[in-house]
């Protein structure tokens, strides 16, 4: 270099570094003896660094390799950008992280679709997901109680869907009806077989609602589903009888005779041929149509179970039950120590507000049933809060102040009020939340406030949870005093199925049902329980 030697250290260093390739360390340092000592280590290191870098200079093969990678990547980038292109940029270097990401995405999708399908209606994209999820939940159910709860919930779901379809002006498809019937029937069978007393009120509520809804959509049924509708409706009548009997702890009225009051017109086919569609029972249904089904109050869908249950004290209907698989249900009602009550029970089936409920010991069950696990189901019912806890109904008219908890209270003053209060919590509890203060407690005194309220009014809208609140107004309370029609109507409004309210106030064999008639507005049709009471004219209607 021709330039003058630099003075500052950094410049000197740099100068030496530049000289290194040609001169070597010692030669460089000779130019700067003063700083030699300090610079030597730096220069030595610099040489090493350069040497290592030189040794690693880009080899030809490396160069070609990288070029290939770049050009291939460029070609890939030219493809139409996929929405998941960002995934390609993720550094998923290992198969494990790729799989973890994929399974995480899959999980999120599944959970999301199931959650989003909560309000799906038939025809929606997510509806199959909803139904599939229902099936899955059934598969995970631990015991009969859980299964029965799920069936009741699914029945509520179907009812919501049917109502929604009707509201929208669509036709009600046969599949909805069939599935509804299947669920209710299965639930009833389970309840009867396994003596799930706690669920009886809810079953009654569901059956009641089913009656109402069926009546409401009678002329909106799809063309090919008329037969299904008829079957479901007839099954429903029977189911109501059974439910009421169960509620009153009476033997399941398999015989039409047994349920004199309630003699729903269908007595014959107590367990309706269960809309054969799903259960395949249709066959026996047909045969049994008028059979004394009594035993199989529950819709045939569960033929198998019935058989086992024959030994029920329902002596009377036992016999008849034979043909119905359901008979077991009747039989199961052993706890109905009231064989006698059977007679009295006739009006039982009615909506628990059997005002006449002489406070049978039932109240206890009722009470007990109140909080039964339903509350839990309620919880599970996430969006179908179908307050279905029709259970609260208990308005076993015949049962006298049955613990109809909800309305009972007022009646006989059964402890109902207590359970009324308590009752409500049942199944309702969950949706009761919405119901909030189920008037039950209040009507405990008056009995009227049938716990039903919850589901009553709101039932229309699927999210059932609302039923809870509606239930409160269960007109039941009214009958408490007079047993006349449950003034419950409060909730009835929506639920129409509050049908219970009407009954029981007058223990009289349901003829009191008429009170129902007052309720008819909503309950009538659905209030099948009334059937016995004569005019329950509504009963048949939906058939």
């Amino acid at each position, binding site marked *: 270099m021709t330039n003058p030697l630099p003075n500052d*250290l*950094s*410049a000197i*260093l*740099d100068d030496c*570094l*530049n000289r*290194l*390739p040609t001169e*070597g360390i010692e030669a460089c340092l000779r130019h700067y003896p003063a700083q030699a000592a300090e610079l030597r*280590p*730096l220069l*030595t*290191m*610099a*040489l*090493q*660094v*350069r*040497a*290592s*870098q*030189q*040794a*690693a*200079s*880009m*080899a*030809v093969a*490396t*160069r*070609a*390799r*990288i*070029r290939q*990678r*770049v*050009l291939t*990547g*460029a*070609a890939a*980038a*030219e493809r139409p950008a996929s929405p998941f292109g960002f995934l390609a940029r993720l*550094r998923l270097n290992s198969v494990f992280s790729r799989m973890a990401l994929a399974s995480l995405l899959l999980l999120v999708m599944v959970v999301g679709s199931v959650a989003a399908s909560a309000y799906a209606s038939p025809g929606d994209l997510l509806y199959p997901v909803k139904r599939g999820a229902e099936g899955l939940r059934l598969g995970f159910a631990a015991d009969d109680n859980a299964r029965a709860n799920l069936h009741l919930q699914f029945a509520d779901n179907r009812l919501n869907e049917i109502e929604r379809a009707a509201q929208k002006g669509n036709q009600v498809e046969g599949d909805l009806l069939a599935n509804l019937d299947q669920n209710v029937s299965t639930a009833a069978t389970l309840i009867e077989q396994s003596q799930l007393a706690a669920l009886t009120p809810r079953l009654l509520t569901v059956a009641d609602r089913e009656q109402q809804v069926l009546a409401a959509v009678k002329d909106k049924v799809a063309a090919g589903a008329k037969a299904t509708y008829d079957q479901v409706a007839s099954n429903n009548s029977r189911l109501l009888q059974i439910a009421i009997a169960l509620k009153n702890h009476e033997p399941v009225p398999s015989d039409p005779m047994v349920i004199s009051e309630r003699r729903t017109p269908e007595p014959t086919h107590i367990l309706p041929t269960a809309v054969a569609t799903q259960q395949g029972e249709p066959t026996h249904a047909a045969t049994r149509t008028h059979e004394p089904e009594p035993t199989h109050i529950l819709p045939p869908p569960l033929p198998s179970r019935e058989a086992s249950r024959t030994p029920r004290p329902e002596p009377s209907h036992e016999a008849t039950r034979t043909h119905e698989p359901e008979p077991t249900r009747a039989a199961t009602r052993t706890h109905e120590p009231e064989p006698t009550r059977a007679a009295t029970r006739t009006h039982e089936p009615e909506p628990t507000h059997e005002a006449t409920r002489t406070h049978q010991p039932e109240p206890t069950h009722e009470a007990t049933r109140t909080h039964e696990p339903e509350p839990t189901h309620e919880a599970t019912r996430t969006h179908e809060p179908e307050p279905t806890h029709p259970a609260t109904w208990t308005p076993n008219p015949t049962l006298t102040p049955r613990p109809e908890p909800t309305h009972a209270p007022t009646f006989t003053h059964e402890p109902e009020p207590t359970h009324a209060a308590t009752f409500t919590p049942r199944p309702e509890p969950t949706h009761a939340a919405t119901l909030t203060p189920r008037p039950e407690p209040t009507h405990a005194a008056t009995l009227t406030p049938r716990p039903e309220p919850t589901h009553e009014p709101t039932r229309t809208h699927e999210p059932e949870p609302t039923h809870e609140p509606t239930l409160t107004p269960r007109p039941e309370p009214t009958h408490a005093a007079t047993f006349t029609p449950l003034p419950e109507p409060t909730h009835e409004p929506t639920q129409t199925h509050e049908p219970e309210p009407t009954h029981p106030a007058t223990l009289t064999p349901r003829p009191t049902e008429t009170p129902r008639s007052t309720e008819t507005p909503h309950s009538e049709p659905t209030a099948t329980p009334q059937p016995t009471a004569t005019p329950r004219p509504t009963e048949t209607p939906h058939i």
Partner: protein
Amino acid sequence: MLINNKSVLVAKGGVGEMLETPTYEHNQETTRLAVASDSELTAVVERARQRDRQAYATLYEYYCVPIYDYVLFKVGQVEVAEDISGQVFLKMIENIARFSWRDSQEQGTRGAAFAGWLYRIAHNLIADHLRRNARRPTVPLDAVAINVSDLHDPVTAAEFSIYRTQLAAALTHLTDLQSQVIALKYGAGLSNAEVGHLLARTEGAIKNVQYTALQKLQKLLRAEGQH
């Protein structure tokens, strides 16, 4: 390391293959930033914007060696350097539409401008890599030291490999600017002027940074090294 321009850096008209291993030359007059004239580079970049694969290859040939050397210097491992180098050029292709010459209107500055862009991409990718591997055990600085007494003594590739890893680890202890200067100078082989141009600093500033950086490096390497 500078390479014969004709064979490598100026590969007009196509993908040229280097037929000979480049020898190290520290030639301040040869710049690694301007691989082609401004007009040529502008034309190539424009073709690359039109997704011309040949233009991609040309740009690659222009800058692959300095970029690779720079990356290798900073990360220390050949495989990682290859990987990151490829990513640099892939990112270049991806974002070339967004590249603008902006203030490189003067003659002869476009090469540096484009190279500077590539070095920035490389720098960011290296930083990502180092951040990702921060938790992984790095090669301790007190690894086997290399005894390099004579520059011409053949040193085994394995020793060099260890040394490079040590060096890359030591670089992480320098400031960002210091490691940039050292890497650009000793890795990519740029001159002070070129480094100053890229980092927007004067040559004198670059020399100062170089001095302190080398001192620091020497202390770090000496800690486990033998010299």
